């Protein structure tokens, strides 16, 4: 390794997908022992760039050098051999196989009649110890926590002797504590002479871990800054291309109790999903549910749109007990913003106007004797599209062609707009409402939710993103293993305490949380 050479040099990389230019003449260098952050919104070209680097795609123009040697394009094997390791956002692990199997794959010639597992295990343990990444080589990946899986991913690269590590949105799935531990690992890696590319759209982390920041926008490299010479505001503007003001919470009067859950218990297939859940959300109030996904949030969201029945306990909206029937929930004007836009938010193959009108087809304004009033539904959709700024080529295109942000605006519009003899929503259940959206769209969604609350709706926001909850929620409760902690005023919560509760350490001890904050 020559210290004077950059670890990695990308020269004039251009990649087109049809008409779209995903990467436009990007040139970038990564120094040895440096953490370079790659910052940009969704669709800015970050993933394309690293996919080219790692050989998943071939660039149309330009070339890559690793430690001065040209890298064969379009070949992950060559990238691995050159010492480039990649930690994917969606882990590239096989759940049913052991940690050792996952690490070992591809490190031995395929036609070898035996596998040197004992030596491999020793080497894995040695590597793990050297970088402070403790894992059990024999554990099945499915049994590991998200943070542990990420460690396995990093180990996979280190085991192969990677000198350059690419981390794609590594903190997106981590709890605050797990993120801390990742940052500590990064420091160790750099101290050992590795070079790291850290891809993120979270400004705070980028400022914290990187030495330099490269900002991508619309496929172009707009700026490379030394981290210490830049600010959060400047980076946000570079990233979005204009100044973005994130909406902030203002004190609002809270009205009558809208949602009331008391002692709710729900199970499915012998597995407890919700355990003794109690929660009150008042009109004009936004309550945030924090937690690592998979701790019952989905069940809670299902309960609140009528697709999951509670075994015991009380579920009521505006004082009226609710049954597990989506029709009833829609009739009470409970608006839902589901977690997975593509899977349950819209019917991808149906046109936009049918998706927009789908929850209201039973209203006389939209159907008569079982026949849809197409004209009214289209008119409603046109208003919605205009009002919520959904960018599309026409309301007859299938919903699946919309981008994530536009699809979310459509869903938001469907949930929030008023049609015919309808009234504004009384309760809004938003599950991960800004997941995968860029800053501009996030600001828009937050604005809508805050406005809806100001207009008197009770809002429940389920999110893994603490920044989001601290920005818009009036009270925050933490969900862990199907149980819900008390919803405490946001002012009295500290991120550290919420993070701990998300990891289960203080689920029953939220008093400590508020003290910690004070």
């Amino acid at each position: 390794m020559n210290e004077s050479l950059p670890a990695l040099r990308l020269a004039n990389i251009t990649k087109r997908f049809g008409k779209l230019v995903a990467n436009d003449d990007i040139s970038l260098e990564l120094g040895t022992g440096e953490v370079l952050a790659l910052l940009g919104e969704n669709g800015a070209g970050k993933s394309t760039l690293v996919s080219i680097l790692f050989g998943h795609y071939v660039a149309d123009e330009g070339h890559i050098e690793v430690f001065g040697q040209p890298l064969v394009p379009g070949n992950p094997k060559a990238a691995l051999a050159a010492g480039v390791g990649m930690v994917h956002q969606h882990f590239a692990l096989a759940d049913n196989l052991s940690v050792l199997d996952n690490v070992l794959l591809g490190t031995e010639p395929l036609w070898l009649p035996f596998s040197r597992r004992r030596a491999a295990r020793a080497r894995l343990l040695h590597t793990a110890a050297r970088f402070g990444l403790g894992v059990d080589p024999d554990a099945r990946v499915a049994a590991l926590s998200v943070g542990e899986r990420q460690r396995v991913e990093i180990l996979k690269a280190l085991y192969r002797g990677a000198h350059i590590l690419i981390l794609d949105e590594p903190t997106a799935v981590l709890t605050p504590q797990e993120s801390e531990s990742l940052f500590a690992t990064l420091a160790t890696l750099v101290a050992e002479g590795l070079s790291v590319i850290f891809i993120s759209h979270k400004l705070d982390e980028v400022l914290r871990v990187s030495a330099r920041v490269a900002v991508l926008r619309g496929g172009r490299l707009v700026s490379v800054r030394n981290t210490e010479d830049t600010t959060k505001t400047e980076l946000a503007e570079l990233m979005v291309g204009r100044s973005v003001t994130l909406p902030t919470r203002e004190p609002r009067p809270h009205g009558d109790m809208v949602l009331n859950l008391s002692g709710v218990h729900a199970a499915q297939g012998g597995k407890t999903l919700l355990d003794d859940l109690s929660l009150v959300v008042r009109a004009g109030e936004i309550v945030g549910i924090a937690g690592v996904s998979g701790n019952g949030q989905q069940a809670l969201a299902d309960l609140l749109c009528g697709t999951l029945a509670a075994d015991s306990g009380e579920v009521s909206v505006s004082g009226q007990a609710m049954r597990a029937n989506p029709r009833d929930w829609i009739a009470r004007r409970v608006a839902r913003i589901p977690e997975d836009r593509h899977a349950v938010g819209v019917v991808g193959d149906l046109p936009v106007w049918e998706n927009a009108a789908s929850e209201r087809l039973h209203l006389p304004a939209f159907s008569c004797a079982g026949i849809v009033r197409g004209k009214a539904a289209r008119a409603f959709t046109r208003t919605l599209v205009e009002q919520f700024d959904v960018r599309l080529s026409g309301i007859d295109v299938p919903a699946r062609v919309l981008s994530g942000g536009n699809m979310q605006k459509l869903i938001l519009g469907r949930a929030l707009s008023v049609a015919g003899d309808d009234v504004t929503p009384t309760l809004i259940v938003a599950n991960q409402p800004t997941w995968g959206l860029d800053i501009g769209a996030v600001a828009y969604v937050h604005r809508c939710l805050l406005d809806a609350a100001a207009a008197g709706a009770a809002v429940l926001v389920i999110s893994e993103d603490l920044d989001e909850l601290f920005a818009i929620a009036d009270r925050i409760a933490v969900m862990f293993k199907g149980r819900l902690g008390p919803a405490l005023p946001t002012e009295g919560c500290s991120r550290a305490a919420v993070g701990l509760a998300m990891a289960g350490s203080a689920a029953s001890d939220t008093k400590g949380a508020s003290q910690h904050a004070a």
Partner: protein
Amino acid sequence: MMDFLANLFDMLGSASFWVATLRVATPLILGTLGVLICERAGVLNLGIEGIMVAGAFTGWLAVFNGADLWTGVLVAGLVGGVFGLLHAALTVWLTVSQHVAGLGVTLLATSLSAFAYRVSFPQVSTPPTVTAFAPLEGLAGLPLIGPVLAGQTSLTLLAIALVPTVAYLLYRTPMGLALRMVGENPAAAEGQGVDVIAVRTGAVIAGSILMGLAGAFLTLSAFNAFFFNMINGRGWICVALVVFASWRPGKALLGAVLFAAFDAAQLRLQQAGGALPYQIYLMLPYLLSILALIVMARRAAYPQALMKPYRKGER
């Protein structure tokens, strides 16, 4: 009740019962291992029913035309491999639906065999025969299992020996790890330098070779002639047995032997002349298999990329 138990123990203690069981089990063991290899790599191979027919026919035809028995077995394996290549071309390269492609391969292989049989033997009333594999009577002297093994042929021993071999290959070699990985998370395997398309293609061909051998056992060992309908759903049983076995070779052997034991037992019950219509006895092994499947399959950990086509560069 006591009578029944006494009869049961009599049956389980008799060598002839186990001889029959192993004979019934052999094609199931081979076929199940074949399906298992394909599915571990992420490819459902419903071509098995037809590939077994083709293996049964071609292996027998080769021997009928003067080849020796092992050459016949080789021919059956090769023909199985060719149909496997076809299935791989459809499902792995062209990424068409694995169900549809598999059923297509079954229909094609079955019809081609029937056609070729009719062309080769336009006017026969009784099926022509060959001299099949002879039982290994030399093994009769072994303690305990001698009498059972003496009733078997080399193909049965081969099938049993393949169980630990396949297990070793799957769990103890780099190739086996690559094969399991492409069936669990092909994108991850690709990222670690494994050629997913090549490994899946190889797995489908290897599995299909075993299916061809399973067919050959029927015409060259269990019987000495080829009949239409002689596979009679055995291929589908293998597909179910793989689920029963949770995709593990050892459990696949257990499942095949268990099913065969049910089958051998129902034959005895029929011969004993019970009061029930014989169709009821014929149903028994299938009913018991479904019950066993319900118990076992609830816990099964499916290969996660099973039936998911892999296209490079797409996520």
